[in-house]
């Protein structure tokens, strides 16, 4: 380094000055202001330029309220939602890194003639695929209108069109041809332009403005007829078939085995991490990162295990009621004896016996109503009795008739998962991937050469060269993702669920405190600073590690 400490400080200040000035005015100033205000009762409705009321110093009261006081239940509730949504972050980062590595591994087509040859091949394949799809799906000539064209769809709104079976087949054929063309186009462009094309393609979601993306995914997530569930339905159909044609025990064992394997793997990872921590092989930050990965793994593994265990029990109703058993049916009949004295108990019992071992609640209601005399009053009494006897259960993937895809944004148990999936889609090829790509390109090739002289290939080269060299980039990504995860989710909740289905996150909460009712900006600042402390603790850990690793 050049010069004395004092001189270095002056030079550094000169470099820093343009940024520092703006930073102090537009960032540091307001931040300091919000810190001060977090210890006051600042509320915009009482304290603003129109009022003489002075802001009162309340000490740590705001912090108390948030952490243990009257706001605590909301804060921790929303913190839980936020943390759940953040489970997607490790998945997203790992995915982005994998994508970046794949893109770097994919050679760009070297010469223009080779490129042209690839493109030609791709175009021919695409044309074949399009023609094939068209031949397979096109519905042939339109049916004779006189022979009656069956209406299949009614427009849900003011639409110009009621569509016949033929119309729908024709439109679906269009869609299939379009999909085939798209697949061909992707393959062709990939062949011709290589990584450059994929890089742009994966980056596309980041170019789309937020609201449009949320609206788009809202239509994709529609429970019935949404593109995602339309794709899931046949897959679930196969699984359903498999579940039907095999003993339930098998699925229980599979589920339990998966759960056990997940827990064991998690324990192993934690123990290895602890031992490294104790032996100072790695810093606390990498242990925290390890914990995040373990948490994600546990969530995914245990969730899947639960679904597996639930699979054989396919007869759950969409309304979330468990199927009835014969014993619960006799409870129902006992209750009907008092609720509905006019109904003949023997007829009820016979009807119940005819229902099989685990009847669906709707079947039970209609059978029992018929046996009871079939009036509206009977139906009401029977329905109440049956629904009371059928407890609410976890819906899982299962429901009434076979496996049903989830009610993505409606069901509180799926909404957050839906948001995570959307987040991964949007972020996988986005900034994170770009940063990894840039980071990878900054790794000097001689390091790889040195490593290959040492005989390192594949995984060991990744662990010993790539990963340490990416450390500053990864550090940045982890920090920024954590910050983004804790502060984000506000617009999603606004547009996609209107805060329903348990999707309110901390950002939404702060916003509500700061900009509704009394505009309690003091309290909102306190919540913001609590979040700051959470993030800062994690960053400080990482920061120490980052300094160690870059030898700085």
């Amino acid at each position, binding site marked *: 380094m050049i010069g004395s400490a004092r001189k270095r400080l002056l030079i550094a200040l000169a470099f820093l000055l343009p940024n520092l000035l703006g930073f102090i005015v537009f960032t540091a100033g307001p931040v300091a202001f919000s810190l001060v205000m977090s210890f006051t009762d600042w509320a915009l409705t009482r304290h603003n330029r129109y009022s003489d009321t002075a802001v009162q110093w309340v000490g740590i009261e705001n912090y108390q309220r948030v952490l243990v006081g009257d706001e605590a239940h909301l804060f921790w509730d929303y913190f839980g939602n936020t943390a759940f949504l953040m489970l997607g972050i490790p998945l997203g980062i790992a995915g982005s890194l994998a994508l970046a590595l794949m893109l770097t591994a994919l050679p760009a087509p070297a010469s223009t003639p080779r490129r042209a040859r690839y493109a030609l091949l791709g175009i021919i394949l695409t044309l074949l695929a399009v023609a094939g799809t068209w031949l397979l799906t096109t519905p042939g000539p339109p049916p004779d209108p006189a022979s009656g064209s069956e209406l299949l769809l009614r427009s849900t709104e003011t639409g110009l069109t009621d569509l016949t079976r033929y119309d729908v087949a024709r439109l679906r054929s269009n869609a299939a041809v379009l999909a085939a063309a798209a697949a061909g186009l992707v393959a062709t462009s990939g062949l011709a332009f290589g990584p450059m094309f994929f890089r742009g393609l994966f980056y596309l979601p980041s170019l789309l403005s937020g609201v449009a993306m949320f609206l788009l995914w809202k239509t994709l997530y529609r429970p019935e007829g949404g593109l995602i569930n339309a794709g899931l339905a046949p897959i679930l159909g196969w699984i359903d078939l498999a579940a039907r044609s095999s003993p339930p025990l098998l699925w229980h064992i599979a589920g339990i085995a998966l759960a056990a394997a997940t827990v064991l793997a998690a324990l192993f990872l934690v123990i290895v991490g602890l031992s490294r921590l104790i032996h100072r092989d790695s810093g606390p930050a990498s242990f925290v990162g390890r914990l995040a990965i373990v948490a994600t793994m546990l969530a995914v593994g245990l969730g899947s295990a639960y679904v597996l265990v639930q699979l054989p029990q396919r007869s759950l109703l969409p309304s979330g009621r468990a199927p009835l058993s014969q014993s619960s049916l006799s409870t129902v009949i006992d209750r009907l004896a008092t609720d509905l004295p006019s109904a003949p108990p023997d007829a009820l019992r016979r009807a119940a016996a005819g229902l099989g071992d685990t009847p669906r609640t709707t079947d039970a209601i209609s059978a029992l109503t018929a046996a009871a005399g079939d009036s509206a009053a009977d139906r009401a009494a029977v329905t109440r009795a049956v629904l009371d006897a059928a407890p609410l259960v976890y819906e899982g993937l299962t429901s009434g008739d076979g496996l049903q895809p989830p009610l993505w944004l409606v069901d509180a148990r799926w909404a957050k998962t839906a948001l995570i999936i959307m987040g991964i889609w949007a972020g996988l090829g986005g900034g994170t991937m770009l940063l990894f790509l840039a980071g990878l390109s*900054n790794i000097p090739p001689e390091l790889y050469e040195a490593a290959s002289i040492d005989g390192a290939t594949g995984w060991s080269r990744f662990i010993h060269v790539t990963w340490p060299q990416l450390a500053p980039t990864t550090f*940045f990504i982890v920090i920024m993702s954590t910050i983004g995860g804790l502060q984000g989710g506000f617009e999603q909740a606004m547009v996609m669920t209107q805060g329903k289905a348990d999707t309110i996150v901390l950002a939404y909460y702060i916003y509500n405190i700061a900009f509704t009712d009394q505009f309690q900006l003091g309290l909102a600042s306190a919540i913001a600073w609590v979040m700051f402390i959470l993030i800062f603790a994690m960053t400080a850990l990482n920061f120490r590690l980052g300094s160690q690793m870059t030898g700085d």
Partner: protein
Amino acid sequence: MPAPATSPRRLTLATSAIFLALVVLGLTFVIPFLWQILISLSSLTDVDLLSQTGFPPVLKPGNYPLVFEKVDFAKYFFNSFFVAGWVTLLQVLTSSMAAYAFSRIAWPGRDKVFLLYLGTLMIPGVVLMVPNFAVVLALGMFNSYWGLIIPGAFTAYGTFLLRQFMLTIPPSLDEAASIDGAGHWRIFTQVILPLARPGLIVLAIFSFLGNYNSFFWPLILTKDDNLRTLPIGLLAFDSTYGRETPLIMAGSLMAMIPPILVFLFLQKYLVRGIQLGAVKG
């Protein structure tokens, strides 16, 4: 670059597998956009139908000109592009200088000041809105291009990002340069900046996109129609009067065109940066 540096440039089994995986993954990225295009081409009344037919019964390409007819879309386009461009230029300039000071010069208190920078990123912006607005108003920048550009030009985010990139440049390089008698300014412009090019390009892309699509700050900082940016302009289709989904989709698809061009333009330099780094490093 790790793999291709040694492997010959032809399709091996591994690269074919990777290629196939990328194509499949690419399709999952293309299909939602295809869907968006189909929505943008259907009439409002058929949007709900689309999930069952997969294709609009009546194609309405007229939605695209309609966006320009209903709002002053061209003006919003210009404003977004113009403001995002200035912010990007200024931000890359100020951030790279600050990052140099944080990564290449050892001065007392450096890490503490840097932590301060970093810390400000961790405060949710919602609570900074009121003081921030007061500052902009006091500086007389409310309802002007200045207010849209200047506050975005000095970010801790950009400084942090570039510092991380500059940290990966081996210290031996600037030591060698300083032995050659180069001052800090020359080391900065002639050694560090070219080597940090991927970082600069990445920051430029992020900064441009972030400001191009930013919604809240321009909304609060303007009241004149002539200053509105694209996301605010698209509000007209999502007012309490109704949500015109096809027009929102058409508008946001068109809004994507400039960022796509900027991305394509800049990614060329990203690649060159990679090769340059390989030669010089």
